[in-house]
């Protein structure tokens, strides 16, 4: 147990003031012993002198925070968050979080809290996740309810395209593509001046 001298007591009071409870914790027991010992009266005089300045220091009123400052700082928070979302890193995170909807995190599959970094599931977990993802995709697209209308639309679209291309299919044996000479192909490939489409 270290014994605090009156000189050390004076140095601490000069730095920390008259309230011994605000002195460094390690020094407080020694200070209490000095106050209760033979140097107690001298120690109390030292504290009295330090207390005069403490009174002057604590005359300062609290500094209230202007409401506008708080609002301005919160606005900077919103800007920072918006900027973070706009960065590629944040965009990747967004993509990953969307992907996680279709391929749940391993922790989620295992019943964890999902706070670990996102990893692609493997093995049986991956198959389970993929199956869950495709099932959800199928469900979100309308499931069997939409299968009939989608098939009908595909048939109508096919017939319409056939009509637009010239009605009946070309005769069997007819050459559906025009003959192109090797020289023309080279003109196109080399942007030759003889090929009129590329001539100004």
């Amino acid at each position, binding site marked *: 147990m270290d014994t605090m001298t009156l000189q050390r007591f004076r140095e601490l009071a*000069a730095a920390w003031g008259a309230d011994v409870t605000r002195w*460094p914790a390690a020094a407080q027991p020694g200070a209490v012993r000095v106050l209760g010992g033979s140097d107690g009266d001298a120690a109390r005089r030292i504290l009295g002198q330090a207390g*005069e*300045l403490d009174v*002057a220091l604590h*005359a300062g009123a609290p500094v209230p925070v202007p409401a506008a*400052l708080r609002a301005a700082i919160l606005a900077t*928070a919103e800007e920072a968050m918006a900027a973070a979302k706009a960065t590629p890193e944040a965009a990747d995170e967004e993509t990953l979080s969307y992907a996680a909807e279709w391929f749940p995190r391993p922790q989620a599959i295992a019943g964890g809290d999902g706070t670990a970094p996102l990893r692609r599931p493997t093995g049986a977990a991956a198959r389970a996740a993929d199956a869950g993802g495709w099932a959800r995709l199928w469900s979100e697209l309308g499931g069997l309810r939409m299968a009939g209308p989608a098939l009908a639309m595909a048939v109508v679209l096919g017939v319409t395209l056939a009509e637009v291309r010239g009605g009946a299919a070309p005769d069997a044996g007819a050459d559906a593509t025009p003959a192109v000479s090797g020289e023309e192909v080279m003109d196109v490939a080399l942007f030759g001046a003889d090929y009129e489409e590329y001539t100004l």
Partner: protein
Amino acid sequence: MDSSHAGDPDLPLLHRIAAGDADACRELVDRHLPVLHATATRLLGDAAEAQDVCQEVFVSAWQAARTWQPGRARFRTWMLRVATNACHDRHRRRRPQDADALDELESLAPDPEQRTALVEREQRLAAALAILPERQRAAIVLCHFEDCSQAEAAGILDISEEALESLLARGRRRLRELLVETR
């Protein structure tokens, strides 16, 4: 310096902010803005500049939250260190004003018809703080106004605990000359 970072109470908030939680930003601001604002105001003696510093510190905080490494320092210590450094930069740019502060202190003679005693004491205190050397002022503001512990204040100022005690003692001695012995 600051060994009291274990169990930083702000860590959960920082994680939430990194995840884009706006409510966590509000909680962090409400928790720390009063101390930050009071510290900057007392260090600079200028309300507008103190508000600028507060905004700068929180803009840095939003950035830092995304890459915060627990265990290096408590958030409050980091925040006050950034603030005192920002105040230091501003002081360097306007050092000639210190002479004005001394003139102001000397001109603040008690005048009951114009000022209440409380307002006069506050003004004398602010003017006296402005005269102190910057590091002494920072030590006194952190330890006597914002109740920072010895370890925390030493961490904020990036000095040893012994050096902090020396700054405090010299700062208090000068303030005593300005406030107590000349009133």
